[in-house]
């Protein structure tokens, strides 16, 4: 079950993502060339003193659905109007990139959310399990302010360890609690309208609309195993017909389909006013196409219903979005009985009437169609960090028209995204995982990915580890099926490092902490100068705590969660082994080099494409490579 099921709560408000920006440029990781100039505010580094905080602001429950009935006021249900709040006894969650070369899977860590009645009662409190955003696209058509982030994306996860308060008098909450195993909840957030101009009120803030529904063990946490609507894209961020990816959930027994338009419809500016795409209709194709559709006749489709995004004036449209988070529930029990008989085996389409085709349209343009053959495979979690000799198990799900499918998945060649192109030749290693897997009758398989004990061999020199991407295909799916380009696994495999039993500041610790001091001045200017021995040893206790907390804890250090277990253990060992003066060992500063480095010591030189120093890099490059393989086709 998921947020697309019922009962469902919808919320809307704002969010803050106070990300730090110096780490957007991979070359800033090079301690040898870093200068304090790089810590200054600029267009590329528009929030150099970011804290990493991710939090919700003024998020209110704006609507809900119970037994097919829309709820939109506190009279309908007392949950409407309550507040979706941040933690009340610990710090805010953190927003974290995987790596400067894979910034397209930023994940929220350590966030706790709670439903508050605003008068001191908390109806539920749960931990948001770390999740990376997905379905990124250029949703906002025009900048509302200088340097607006016009890309939008979704975060889908679960609230775990949920503590419920039961005497709330809300039938909606009671039903949600009853439908949720152990009280856990599925939550989806659509994020858009993010501001990057320091002079505007929306600086580091954006808008969020989302939904909360029931969750059960065995369900994926980060996607809905429903009907996957996959548009063709004219370039990496722009769908060919203006509408991006979305998911529908068909409940055949209830004759109901729930379609999530929350992230797929283009908006004009940051505030979420919809671009007018004309009438949008969800339909079932009466045929069984295995290729792309352009226009279809009215006779060849069965219309399920119309998307309400255009009803009324601009205010009413925004109210629709706030109240529903863009989810439309269509009841087809009273429609053409053909639908009920065939919806489970025919593709869904999003249509708009062809201009001039009459008041009762005779033909429609297809804006988005379901994955060819209804086939889809996804990894639940799409981001992993791997220590040398560590194995992770990615849960894979295969579906056909939203139903579990026993099939074969073939895994793509891995991308070492940042090889060194100049001597010395470096062994970038490789990850071990099967070339193919069969899913079981439940449509599931575990993809076990193992990082070799030798690690990737420090191919990137001044930055730890190597990035990999693993994609997959279903041989059962027709060739040239449009794909969701975000549907792949990103991995960061750490270098193997030999750490001394008795580490010291100069040789072992300072090079690591210097990098954090350079990249995150909010910490080093205002709390602890991580580049300075005296400052660090004056804060041994708090550093010991922060470095030893689990990654899931919002106070975990480093905030960026990009330190290998071996290095973190070495730092803790150093903090806990004081010398005779009671302070962690200082060691000796390296003598200034008198001779040029020999070849064996030469620093690897990163072969950087110009795009790669501009942040959003790895995926663009992978997409470029994909396009090249396709002979230039998108």
């Amino acid at each position, binding site marked *: 079950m998921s947020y697309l099921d019922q009962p469902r709560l919808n919320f809307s408000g704002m969010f803050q993502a106070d990300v730090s920006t110096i780490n957007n440029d991979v070359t800033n990781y090079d301690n040898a060339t870093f200068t304090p100039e790089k810590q200054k505010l600029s267009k590329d580094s528009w929030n150099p003193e970011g804290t990493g905080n991710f939090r919700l602001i003024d998020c209110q429950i704006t609507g809900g659905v119970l037994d097919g009935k829309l709820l939109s006021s506190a009279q309908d249900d007392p949950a409407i109007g309550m507040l979706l709040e941040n933690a009340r006894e610990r710090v805010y969650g953190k927003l974290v990139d995987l790596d400067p070369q894979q910034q397209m899977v930023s994940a929220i860590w350590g966030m706790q959310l709670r439903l508050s009645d605003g008068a001191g009662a908390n109806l539920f409190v749960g931990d948001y399990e770390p999740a990376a955003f997905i379905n990124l696209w250029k949703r906002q058509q025009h900048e509302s302010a200088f340097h607006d982030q016009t890309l939008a994306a979704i975060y889908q996860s679960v609230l775990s360890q949920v503590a419920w308060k039961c005497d709330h008098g809300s039938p909606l909450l009671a039903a949600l609690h009853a439908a949720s195993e152990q009280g856990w909840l599925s939550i989806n957030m659509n994020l858009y309208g993010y501001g990057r101009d320091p002079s505007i009120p929306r600086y580091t803030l954006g808008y969020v609309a989302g939904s909360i529904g029931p969750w059960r063990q065995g369900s994926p946490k980060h996607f809905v195993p429903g009907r996957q609507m996959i548009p063709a894209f004219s370039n990496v961020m722009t769908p060919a017909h203006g509408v991006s990816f979305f998911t529908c959930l068909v409940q055949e027994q209830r004759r109901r389909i729930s379609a999530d338009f929350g992230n797929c419809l283009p908006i004009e500016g940051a505030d979420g006013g919809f671009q007018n795409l004309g009438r949008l209709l969800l339909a079932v194709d009466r045929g069984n196409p295995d290729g792309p559709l352009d226009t279809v006749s009215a006779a060849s489709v069965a219309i399920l219903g119309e998307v309400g995004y255009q009803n009324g004036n601009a205010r009413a449209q925004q109210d629709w979005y706030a109240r529903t988070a863009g989810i439309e529930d269509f009841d087809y029990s009273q429609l053409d009985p053909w639908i009920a008989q065939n919806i489970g085996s025919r593709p869904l389409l999003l249509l708009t009437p062809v201009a001039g085709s009459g008041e009762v349209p005779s033909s429609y343009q297809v804006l988005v169609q379901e994955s060819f053959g209804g086939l889809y495979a996804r990894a639940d979690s799409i981001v992993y960090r791997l220590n040398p000799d560590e194995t992770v198990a990615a849960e894979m799900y295969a579906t056909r028209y939203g139903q579990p499918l026993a099939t074969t998945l073939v895994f793509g060649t891995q991308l070492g995204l940042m090889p060194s192109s100049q001597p010395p030749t470096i062994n970038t290693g490789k990850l071990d995982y099967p070339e193919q897997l069969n899913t079981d009758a439940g449509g599931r398989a575990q993809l076990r990915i193992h990082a070799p004990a030798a690690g990737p061999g420090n191919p990137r020199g001044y930055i730890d580890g190597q990035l990999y991407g693993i994609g997959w295909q279903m041989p059962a799916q027709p060739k040239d099926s449009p794909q969701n380009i975000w549907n792949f696994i990103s991995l960061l495999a750490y270098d193997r490092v030999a750490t001394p039993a008795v580490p010291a500041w100069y040789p072992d610790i300072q090079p690591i902490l210097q990098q954090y001091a350079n990249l995150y001045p909010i910490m080093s200017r205002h709390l602890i100068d991580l580049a300075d021995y005296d400052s660090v040893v004056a804060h041994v*206790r708090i550093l010991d705590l922060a470095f030893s907390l689990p990654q899931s804890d919002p106070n975990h250090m480093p905030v960026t969660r990009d330190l290998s277990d071996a290095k973190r253990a070495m730092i803790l060992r150093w903090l806990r082994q004081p010398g005779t003066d009671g302070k962690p060992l200082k060691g000796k500063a390296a003598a200034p080099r008198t001779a040029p480095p020999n070849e064996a010591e030469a620093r690897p030189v990163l072969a950087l494409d110009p795009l790669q120093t501009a942040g959003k890099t790895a995926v663009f490059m992978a997409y470029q490579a994909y396009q090249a393989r396709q002979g230039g086709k998108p």
Partner: protein
Amino acid sequence: MIRLHRNYVRAVRQARAAQDLFGPLQNAIELEHSTIPPYFTATASLVAGKNEAIAGLIRAITMQEMLHMCIASNILIAIGGQPQINRPGFVPEYPGPLPMHIGGPDFTVGIEAFSRDLVKQVFMQIEEPEQPIPVHEKAEIEPEYETIGAFYRALQAKIVELGDGIFEPSSLPNQVVQGNWFPPDQLFAITGADSAVRAIDIIVLQGEGSSSSPYESPDVLAHFYRFGEIHAGRALVKTADGYAYAGAPIPFDDNGVYPLRPNCKLAQFTPGTQAHTRLAQFIYSYNSLLNALHTCFNGQPGRLDAAIGLMYSLRIEAVALVQTPVAPGSAQNVGPSFEYMQT
């Protein structure tokens, strides 16, 4: 001389049972907390990289106020009480009087940027000893008022009088002593009258020094004299005829202070502005800290680490706050506000 109304001391002296000390100890917790917001704000107003020595001095004092708050809480827990930390009224109204009318009817404390005047007029008043070591000037005590020191001495005397019987051994696991956040000879479990008296000595000594010395320990000056150094701009040294602020300079760069609007309140700002958003965030985190501390001192001492995390987070959040103009183009910046908020 910092004073509090004699009634508060009298209430301690008239106590007949442990329960009669719950109120005075809760007052002590609130008093120790109430000094932290003004000290915190003064430090936060100092520009990073400038006035580091002053910031370090005030920050160290603030840490000791936190220790004192812990000690008072542990004593209350030890005799069967429950510290109340995230409640309306726990946070004083700034500007306004401190708990127990500390300093007399005319003494108000606000939330302001650092200045040497603030140190002299407010911080040194708060910390003024029972019997200051003469450093150039003398103070007088008005008869209807007593000192904070006298209040704590009365508490000690009453605890000794009531004896070890008022201490509940079962409270031991609920006391907050773990984590090595403070030296074990300063923060320790309160198991009876002896340890309670010893703990209160630390509060008094760190704040005021002793009647014969401005030092709380051989190398560490009591708060009053450290503030005195900051105000005078020189370290305290012993001279032929006593003590004088005539030692090494403690420089102050008055360009190194953010121009904070004093006593900001969230209601003064327009929702949706950067000033409002950041102040609201700060207030929320401050209340999260009070919530975490309340839980910590009411049966879940392991939550102290989360509270410490919030303290660091507050310092970080104050960085952006104090650099935010109260309105676009204004020469004044937003100062922290410590408002109670039910969450």
